[in-house]
């Protein structure tokens, strides 16, 4: 910690630096519009105190030109900053395709992370430096919010649907992670540590914490355990939509609309099967909402994504899959 009292947060990513420049620039522009108010106010107070000789006749009671200038100028300044900030926001909201995928599950008062290689962590997250990392997040109870102050990003974690967040940490080190959305009694204890490792350290950490089976393999075990293969397996008697190569393809639904089979579609089909019934199939699939928790669903989704289609699929950004 530099100096006695830290007054500015660490910058652990380029994006953090850009946000800081935006903030400093905005403060500067606002000072340009605000300081004159304080200066003129004190000047007028001292010059026009009662009993103090000053020139007081033909007092202006208003002027359209002056009003318009201090309406339009600050707004234009703000618009310029708005556009720059909206671009930054857009960049922070759209994860790059080749990002390393990590599943995050928030639960009242702890953070659980699952890597595609199968490694699982609680309240600590190991990520490689200089590589984009995408977090697909969901909550098992109330709204939480994963907040990385040193990366200047946060994203609420909602129960019921996936929310995403991505970052690219540059400098290896240990950074604080908080839950920013109030979530009950131990909201203050729901903190975590972000360990940014150099690529070689990260590789060594992956082997060290290896679970033996990748996330997709764990998903396959669940696929059999919950009897999904009974209907969706190749040799099943009941008619159920084929799952090979489903991920990324657009699916025709019973009500005539089409939807891209992304993570959210796969999760909803498992937990809310009535929501988007595939065209030509009866809505007979039972819900697994009370049987499976979000972590198990995340593993199943990872497995479904790893099901390679016998027909070579055009690469739609297949996930990092080191089975």
């Amino acid at each position, binding site marked *: 910690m530099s100096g006695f009292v830290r007054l500015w947060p660490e910058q652990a990513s380029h994006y953090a630096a850009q946000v800081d420049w935006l903030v400093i620039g905005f403060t500067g522009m606002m000072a340009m519009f605000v300081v004159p108010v304080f200066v003129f106010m004190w000047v007028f107070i001292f010059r026009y105190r009662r009993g103090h000789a000053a020139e007081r006749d033909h007092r202006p009671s208003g002027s359209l030109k002056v009003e318009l200038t201090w309406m339009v100028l600050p707004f234009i300044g703000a618009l310029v900053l708005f556009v720059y900030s909206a671009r930054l926001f857009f960049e922070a909201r759209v994860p790059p395709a080749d990002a390393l995928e990590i599943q995050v599950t928030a639960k009242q008062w702890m953070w659980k992370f699952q890597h595609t290689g199968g490694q699982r962590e609680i309240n600590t997250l190991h990520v490689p430096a200089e590589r984009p990392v995408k977090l697909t997040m969901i909550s098992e109870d109330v709204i939480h919010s994963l907040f990385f102050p040193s990366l200047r990003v946060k994203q609420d974690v909602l129960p019921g649907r996936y929310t995403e967040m991505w970052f690219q940490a540059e400098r290896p080190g240990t950074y604080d992670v908080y839950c920013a959305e109030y979530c009950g009694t131990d909201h203050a204890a729901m903190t975590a540590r972000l360990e940014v490792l150099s690529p070689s350290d990260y590789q060594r950490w992956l082997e060290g914490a290896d679970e033996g089976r990748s996330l997709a393999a764990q998903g396959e075990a669940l696929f059999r355990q919950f009897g999904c293969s009974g209907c969706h397996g190749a040799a099943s008697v009941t008619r159920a939509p084929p799952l090979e190569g489903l991920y990324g393809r657009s699916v025709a639904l*019973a*009500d005539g609309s089409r939807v891209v089979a992304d993570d959210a579609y796969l999760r909803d089909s498992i937990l*809310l099967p*009535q*929501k988007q019934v595939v065209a030509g199939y009866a809505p007979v699939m039972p819900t697994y909402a009370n049987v499976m928790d979000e972590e198990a669903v995340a593993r199943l989704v990872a497995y479904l994504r790893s099901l390679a289609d016998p027909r070579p699929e055009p690469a739609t950004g297949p996930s990092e899959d080191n089975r």
Partner: protein
Amino acid sequence: MTASEARPAEQFEDLRQQAEADRLGMWLFLASETMMFGGLLLVLWFYRLSHPRETAEALASMHWLLATGNTALLLTGSLCMTLALAAAREGEARVLRRWLWVAALLGLGFLAGKSVEYGLEFQEGLLPGNDPASPLKSGAARLFMNVYLTATALHGVHILVAVLLVGGLAWRVGRGNLPVPAKAVTVEMIALYWHVVDLIWLFLYPTLYLAGRGA
């Protein structure tokens, strides 16, 4: 809000100013009512757009013909209140009383229709929505039934209040202690309340029963 003697309340210059104030006050109160029901309509349309298929499933089991009849009752009630107000302005107490009783009965008819509908829905297990034996399979369809119950119950309470107001007014006119046309403003206020409660139903009815049926 009603000044008992013909003289206006002391903060008003004359009766016209007081009537205008009462009218504005009533309109503002009704604006706040529409904002409240607007919130409910927003919830309904939010879930209609985010769960179209399940909403259609819930709509299939609604008794919409009964509701259409109810809507007709309310519209007739509005007509009665307008005719009652016209009679009040012309000072014909007897005609006023007749239209007020008809409007009150129509309101009761609406409430009766509503309770029959509720009875059927409870019997079929549609209500309350999270009843495990509900014939609706998807969660969002049950959610729709629950929000339907909340919205129609709240509106039903407002209809009940309207019926009581109109009934009370008719009884006072019968007893003779509501001189018309001097006190026509009171009739106008209650007619206005009835019309806005009816207006709210005009939007609740298609949202809950018609739009998207048979999808």
